[in-house]
């Protein structure tokens, strides 16, 4: 007999969120299984960013709940949850310093105390993007928009999240940089069949390339 254990990685149950007194979305349910890639679309103002922020536990829901591996995200350890369900957005923020200092700062957090700076993985990844290891010594202030987004992805992917919440990460980038980011995400997905994602983008072609399921917000 074969027992198939099928758990949902992330499920949203009848979630609702208000801004001031207006519901942005309500009665929203979603089940993301391991390995799935979801596109999140909808007109501007339909609450796509708000949904990702709620999923990342940066904002609370006004009703309903979010379960991660069967447990309510309002009761689990938030830093540990966020490290596994990672939110990445259009404009990454860093502190003044070099690329490497920004990458290492994450590993100084208590949550990642057992993790070490993976120089091999970083240099291998940079190599695939056509960048030398000198890139690590560049000051953050000297990076282009595309390079800053690459650093944000390296910073996030080095802690091995199991799910990505992507909020227009390539919106302001040139085609070459978009290709870099997409290849980083593809490599991360290929590394583990359980890796899943939710992707907010206005680029329909990108959503068709990178995702297979779709959530549409703002249908009323």
């Amino acid at each position, binding site marked *: 007999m074969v027992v198939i254990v099928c758990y949902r990685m992330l499920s949203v149950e009848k979630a609702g969120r208000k801004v001031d007194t207006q519901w942005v979305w309500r009665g929203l349910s979603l089940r993301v299984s391991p390995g799935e890639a979801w596109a999140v679309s909808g007109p501007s103002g339909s609450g796509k960013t708000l949904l990702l922020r709620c999923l990342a536990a*940066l904002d609370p829901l006004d009703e309903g709940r979010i379960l991660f591996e069967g447990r309510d995200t309002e009761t689990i350890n938030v*830093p540990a949850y966020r490290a596994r369900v*990672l939110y990445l957005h259009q404009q*990454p923020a860093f502190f003044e310093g070099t690329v490497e200092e920004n990458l290492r700062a*994450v590993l100084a957090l208590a*949550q990642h105390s057992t993790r070490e700076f993976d120089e091999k993985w970083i240099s291998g990844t940079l190599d695939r993007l056509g960048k030398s290891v000198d890139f690590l010594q560049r000051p953050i202030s000297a990076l282009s928009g595309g390079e800053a987004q690459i650093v944000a992805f390296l*910073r996030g992917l080095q*802690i091995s999240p199991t799910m990505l919440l992507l909020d227009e990460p390539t919106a302001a980038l040139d085609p070459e940089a978009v290709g870099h980011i997409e290849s980083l995400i593809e490599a991360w997905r290929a590394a583990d069949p359980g890796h899943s994602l939710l992707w907010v983008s206005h680029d329909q072609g990108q959503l068709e390339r990178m995702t297979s399921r779709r959530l549409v917000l703002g249908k009323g």
Partner: protein
Amino acid sequence: MDSAYIQIGNLELALAALLMLINLGLSAWLRLGLGRQLVLASVRMSVQLLLVGLVLEWIFALRNPWVVLLLAMIMGTTAGIAAVGRTGRRFPGIYRNSLLNVLFASFLVTGLAGQGIIRFQPWYDPQYFIPLLGMLLGNALTGISLALDRFMENLVSRRAFIESMLCLGATRWEAAHREVKDAVRTGMIPIINAMMVMGVVSLPGMMTGQILAGADPADAVRYQIVIVFMIAASTALGTLGVVMMSFFSMFSSRHRLLSTQLLRTQSE
């Protein structure tokens, strides 16, 4: 009373008020538009001080602990509210945070230093209690006001970075301890600067007052040193306390930055 100093009568006060003509003249000549405010500030300052002189005379004569405490509470509450008055942003609970910390820091240090170091008796002797407390309140007010303003501005300007760190698994403390430290440091700058140049660039008002009143300069200096240490201690306590309480007001136990709570004040 046999006084060791020259009394200032009403004529002398009026003559001193004439000094304001210099300010008014400059304001009119350079069109600074400060005339009304200068007159208002001069009148307020004179009336407030004359009134407080009367109140203090009455309280000194009464020597009732409850009356002294009541006056102290009024002074502390005014300082706590004034500390929030100049900040560019507000959040719910900011007045509570400011009041609690101004009162706690000033009363604690006045009590400790008053009873442990200067040892005046009884503990509420208004001749000591009220001026000491007043000096601590004035300085704690500045420190708390600067620190609160800096903390809230930092949370707004560095919100993206703070939330990035939270997303990467930082606790609220790991994500915002830089902002906390920066705010406390900012609140402490005025008193540290003042201590650095005290006696060289500036002769502190209290010491000057004691000397004018006929005290031995060596005694006045000793008093001043004790007071400055008291001021530094209460400013540090009040500033650290208010920033820590505000940190807990602005970050939930679920490690969320409650940035929607930060409202700009209307006056800006």
